[in-house]
């Protein structure tokens, strides 16, 4: 990848989160202030749009260093450093609130629970590695089977007073279960709510024992406010959903890039 560098004189730092569904870019200035964010579909990773995004960013900003994260992190050539999305999420949330906390990150194909200490360091974490239960893929696949428009799903669920839940954690079997609901003429509002409730159940089966608040980040939090409220009720805790929560990990990566630059200067 050919990169044109240093268009502006003030130093900037790039974080790139190559997730399973979307690749997110965040640029920060030297004070950690976000100056640019954009996302593209990860499927386009080999196509023009990745190159366009990178060239545009490097054309516009004087990028001193870049940190790649997410499942495709090792494949992003311009990166000087590579960090996992768990540590990037912790770094970003530390900048937002330097306190003990628990981060719940629901992404396209995974769900992560990250416990951070007061210094923002990762104390322990959970990442699903057996199946996609409770992830964005679970939500979108089942919504698709029920012919629910994802952009309308949160609004639909709000209109439901149903307590009905999908029992199966398995995405494929949950789709079968939804077939039964469709045959029973369950209204779409109740189906939408039932799908969210299934993800809440999944989250509830994981350890969330931090004394501090919960930070909810990732694509599901960004696009499904009803889910966020349901989680608040279910945990009985403060749940912060940062603005543009799908960019939090790339923001953390940009901060990591800055840290790296500071360290290289020191050394």
């Amino acid at each position, binding site marked *: 990848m050919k990169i044109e560098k240093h268009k502006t004189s003030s130093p900037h730092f790039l974080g790139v989160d190559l997730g399973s569904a979307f690749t997110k870019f965040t640029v920060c200035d030297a004070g950690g202030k976000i100056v640019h964010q954009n996302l593209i579909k990860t499927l386009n990773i080999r196509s023009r749009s990745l190159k366009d995004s990178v060239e545009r960013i490097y054309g516009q900003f004087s990028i001193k260093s870049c940190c790649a994260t997410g499942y495709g992190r090792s494949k992003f050539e311009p990166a000087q450093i590579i960090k*996992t999305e768990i540590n990037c999420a912790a770094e970003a949330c530390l900048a937002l609130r330097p306190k003990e906390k628990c981060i719940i990150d629901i992404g396209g194909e995974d769900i992560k629970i990250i416990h951070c200490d007061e210094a923002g360091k990762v104390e322990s974490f959970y990442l699903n*590695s057996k199946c996609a239960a409770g992830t964005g893929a679970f939500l979108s696949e089942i919504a698709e089977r029920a012919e629910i428009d994802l952009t309308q799903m949160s609004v639909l669920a709000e209109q439901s007073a149903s307590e009905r839940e999908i029992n199966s954690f398995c995405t494929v079997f949950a789709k079968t279960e939804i077939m039964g609901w469709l045959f029973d003429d369950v209204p779409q509002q109740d189906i939408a709510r039932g799908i969210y409730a299934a993800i809440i159940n999944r989250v509830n089966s994981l350890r969330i024992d931090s004394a501090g608040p919960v930070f909810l980040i990732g694509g599901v939090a960004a696009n499904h406010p009803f889910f966020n409220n349901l989680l608040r009720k279910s945990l009985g805790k403060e749940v912060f959903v940062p603005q543009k929560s799908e960019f939090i990990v790339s923001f953390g990566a940009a901060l990591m890039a800055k840290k790296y630059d500071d360290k290289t200067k020191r050394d």
Partner: protein
Amino acid sequence: MAYKIKSTSVLKELMRDYFQRIGQREKPLAWCTSVGPAELLRSFGFEVYFPENHGALLGATRTAGSNIPAAMKCGYSGDICSYTTSDIGAFLNQSTPLKTQYGLDGIPRPDLLVYNTNQCREVEDWFHFYADRFNCSIAGIHPPRHLHSIRAAEIELVTAQFKRILPLCEQISGQKFDLDAFREVLQLSSEATLLWQQVLRTAMASPAPLSFFDGTIHMGPIVVLRGTVEAKTYYAELLQELQENIAAGRGFLQQESCRLFWEGMPIWGKLRALSDLFVQNDAAVVASTYCNSWIFDAFNEKEPFESSARAYTEIFINRSEQAKFTMLQKWIEDYRIDGVIFHDAKTCFNNSNARFGMPLRLKNKLGIPSITIDGDLCDLRFYSEGQSITKIETFIEQIQNQKSFI
């Protein structure tokens, strides 16, 4: 220059000779479980074959996945031990790497099957499959399980069980039991196992000259050749090489950013990939419960039955949670471990120790962080590579951060 253990070439020859001897069938052949009474069998002149070693071979050559379905069709669930299912499947499919790698005709026909349920009940069913197929005699040791401490009554019980199999061994081997021969084999086994212990302990040095992944390769002789002169000679040679490497400051990772412990079974089909992953991240995996499982320091040729009974009953896998904790604590201290990787093997709950709260106990009592990797010894369908790599790399970053690396 890349770090290499030169003795590996000797190891390969040793393993080849061992399998060729099995193929030649000059001696009667006994099958034995990996922590079964191999010394007693050798004292009767049996050549000894270990199906678990075959299971590991199927895993390492990634041929387990194509064989497991044959065992499932035969009624064995895909959720039980994948050594068992891949081995039975390979037998049914008549497809084994023993043919291509060691020139055997197939899985060698047993004259006698002897198991010890000190590790799990699965081995009993596994061996019974072959007892039926080959119409072969079978005997088992059934020690008390999951012991907190080993008391005299337990030793007495297991000793009696060892003695009970003598008539069958005499009948199949055509040899009378010879106490001196048993003492001699046990003495050889004892020397080999203590040398193996010293080999593993070289990894207490930093940089360590032996990784957990190297250990899984070099443990071959202590599993299949214990009680022979070859095993003892091999470990003496390997130990000398590793000690020279320590003296010269050579290790598999020159700059260890952290030292890790592998708990549970190896993921045989991913050994190389995992070994590379840790090294790329400057993390040294220096010790494991798995490789330490073949240290039988209770062996004493003066009391061959009693000491065998003790040695094979006090192994890690046969202990209570509290006893396991104490053993882990000792290894963590001795090897200066910064973190533990628990491998939760889907088809071997017997050797997966993250399920009864051990990770939390290590954290709370010793301050040792850990992660749990979902996977399996042989069945790679239970292993998600992307997620596991992220877990491992995050864990290493977490430890490095705690040690003030960026």
